[in-house]
């Protein structure tokens, strides 16, 4: 049964909301600004910060917007002097014991105390007493650091562990001005969703150890993306600058992840970062370079090896033959739908490998796991998309048949679109060994170098941060990722690789958005050459 729709007026603007909506939700519906700390749309109402004061016509005293329901014909305002005064003095109470160590606080720049102070405060403090000193730099576990002095006791984090993660690690201890957030003895804050408490903390009381002191937030730009950590496909925001990616935060999507994301997913920012990426294409050590060969490695005096040139060489060796050698393609579910379509259609049309396209499924034991909140056992962002493409092209074959064909030495060239996130493929080493022992020519697309494999052609691929495409999550929901910034210039997407392998010229594509690099001084950065 749908709820009754009622009308009310907010700051002389009419809005229609379903019955039972709180005033603050109606404010958010209209995109009107209202000061608040303790209220969070994903959590229950606490009503402790007393900052979301509103003036309701007919009620003599101010009411809190988060715990008051909208009634038919209500006239609500938060623009009056009365409200502004109330918020100002409310804010001063919050700041009585706040240490004001903004220079060393990681939240500075995105702190709601700073924002509200600039909007409503700007008073000179009237407090004559000394500030109450509390514990600083309290270790809450492997992920989070707590500063009890900065905390304003909004209880968002406590409600989060009670209501969302349901692990009940945090609590408010002591009373009065000595009350503080804390954990119980020997029970650290170690659940899979713990870092969400850092996101929802309106001040800098909870800070993430991973991000702590690495960047000031005003140096970061934000880009929308999709988490590639598992098949849930949470919507995320990535904070990055010219030095690389620094952190991941959840982005609200009612259908997929709500307001939250898991801590494992927060690791995905490491994947596109230049440290640990494969920066140049690699030819196997057995490949003997000729004097006139454009593939000669840079240290031997030739030009730096670009991946396009390596792919052209591969095309000469394995594709552009009168009788194409028997090839097989192995795909992991870590690329976009568009890439699969291009690559698979290239293989079927040009190499005739309809019968030899295989799907590499990692961790089959825990593949269908689900922890009940967000985290799934299928650690690939696009399993559904891959299976869809393979079914459409009629090219899905069991892993056993690949093994049989490899053992019978029927496959001369093996092409592998390897995992972008190698950590979630525990069988990676084992698979490389199998492939290497049964096949002489292996071409491997990978974003991160394969350690100690000398027999494989390695082609650097773009990560989810650098290419545009569609990922299909476990429910079949297609979500777009955007190309934000290319960190490795020689990286190619699978579609681009397919274009080069076909023998076509690659279109020079300017990345849609480039971060201007820090201006470097020629004389100081090229050391010893002045």
């Amino acid at each position, binding site marked *: 049964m749908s709820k009754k729709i009622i009308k009310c007026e907010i700051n002389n603007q009419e809005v229609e909301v379903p019955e039972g909506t709180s005033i603050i939700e109606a404010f958010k519906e209209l995109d009107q600004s209202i000061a608040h700390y303790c209220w969070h749309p994903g959590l229950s109402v606490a009503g402790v910060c007393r900052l979301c004061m509103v003036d309701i016509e007919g009620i003599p005293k101010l009411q809190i917007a988060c715990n008051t329901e909208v009634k038919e014909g209500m006239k609500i305002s938060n623009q009056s002097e009365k409200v502004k005064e109330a918020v100002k003095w409310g804010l001063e109470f919050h700041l009585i014991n706040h240490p*004001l160590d903004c220079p060393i606080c990681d939240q*500075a720049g995105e702190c709601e105390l700073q924002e509200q102070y600039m909007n409503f405060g700007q008073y000179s403090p009237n407090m004559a007493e000394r500030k109450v000193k509390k514990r600083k730099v309290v270790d809450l576990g492997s992920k989070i650091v707590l500063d009890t002095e900065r905390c304003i006791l909004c209880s968002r984090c406590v409600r989060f562990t009670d209501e969302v993660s349901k692990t009940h690690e945090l609590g408010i201890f002591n009373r009065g001005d000595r009350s503080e957030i804390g954990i119980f003895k020997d029970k650290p804050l170690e659940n899979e969703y713990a870092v969400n408490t850092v996101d929802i903390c309106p001040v800098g009381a909870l800070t993430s150890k991973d991000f702590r002191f690495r960047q*000031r937030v005003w*140096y970061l730009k934000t880009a929308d993306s999709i988490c590639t950590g598992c098949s849930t496909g949470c919507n995320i925001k990535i904070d990055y600058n010219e030095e690389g990616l620094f952190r991941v935060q959840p982005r609200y999507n009612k259908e997929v992840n709500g307001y939250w994301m898991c801590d494992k997913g927060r690791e995905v920012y490491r994947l596109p970062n230049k440290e640990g990426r494969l920066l140049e294409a690699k030819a196997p050590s057995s490949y003997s370079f000729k004097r006139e060969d454009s593939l000669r490695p840079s240290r031997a005096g030739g030009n730096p090896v670009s991946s396009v040139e390596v792919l052209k060489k591969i095309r000469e060796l394995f594709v552009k033959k009168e009788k194409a050698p028997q090839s097989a393609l192995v795909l992991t579910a870590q690329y976009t739908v568009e890439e699969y379509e291009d690559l698979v259609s290239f293989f079927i049309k040009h190499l005739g490998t309809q019968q030899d396209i295989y799907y590499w499924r990692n961790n089959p034991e825990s593949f269908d796991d689900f922890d009940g909140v967000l985290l799934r056992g299928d650690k690939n962002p696009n399993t559904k998309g891959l299976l869809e493409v393979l079914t459409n092209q009629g090219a899905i074959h069991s892993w056993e048949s690949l093994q049989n064909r490899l053992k019978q030495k029927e496959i001369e060239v093996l092409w592998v679109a390897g995992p972008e996130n190698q950590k979630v493929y525990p069988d990676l080493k084992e698979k490389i060994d199998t492939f290497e022992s049964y096949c002489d020519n292996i071409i491997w697309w990978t974003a991160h170098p394969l350690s100690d494999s000398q027999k494989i052609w390695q082609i650097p691929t773009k990560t989810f941060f650098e290419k545009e495409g569609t990922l299909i999550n476990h429910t079949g929901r297609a979500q777009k990722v955007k190309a934000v910034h290319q960190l490795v210039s020689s990286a190619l997407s699978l579609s681009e690789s397919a274009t080069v392998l076909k023998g076509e010229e690659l279109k020079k594509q300017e990345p849609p958005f480039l971060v201007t690099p820090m*201006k470097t001084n020629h004389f100081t950065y090229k050391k*010893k050459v002045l």
Partner: protein
Amino acid sequence: MSRVQRKSRSGVWYLPPIFKGLFFTFKKMLANLSKKNKMLTLNYPEEHYSYGPRFKGNHILTVKKDGSLRCTACMLCATNCPANCIKIIASEHESPEVEKYPIAYEIDILRCVFCGFCEEACPVDAIRMGPEWQAAGLNGDDFIYDIKYLSKRDSLKGGVLSHVDDKERHKAGM
């Protein structure tokens, strides 16, 4: 368009101005030789000109009473720097009272425009612009001042003490 000057009678009278000029030169030379202390020029490498106390020269990172760096790595100087010449890497300090401190602090002095905004932005009097103005070097490396040079170079004689003290602030209940 160029213009050719014709020979004129007045053009012949070039000697008197030359003697006038030479007379001035010799007058000054003799005056300088007799009154050396009033001479305007300096024998530069041996003699230095000292500027006023508000002169903005090479940067100094101040220290606390125990000799450790005053800087808290808040990066306000780097943010405020119009020349983008300050680079700081922050890290976690062992002591919870300090909490954050810089492990690297580099100023590219060739980029610096000596505007003094870093000094103005600093909330804890950690960076100052000192009286030194000579920035000579043999190669590019010498123009990047690192944390050690900025705080403990020989001319600072062990470091410059900061006005702002954490312990006093804690005692005052701030």
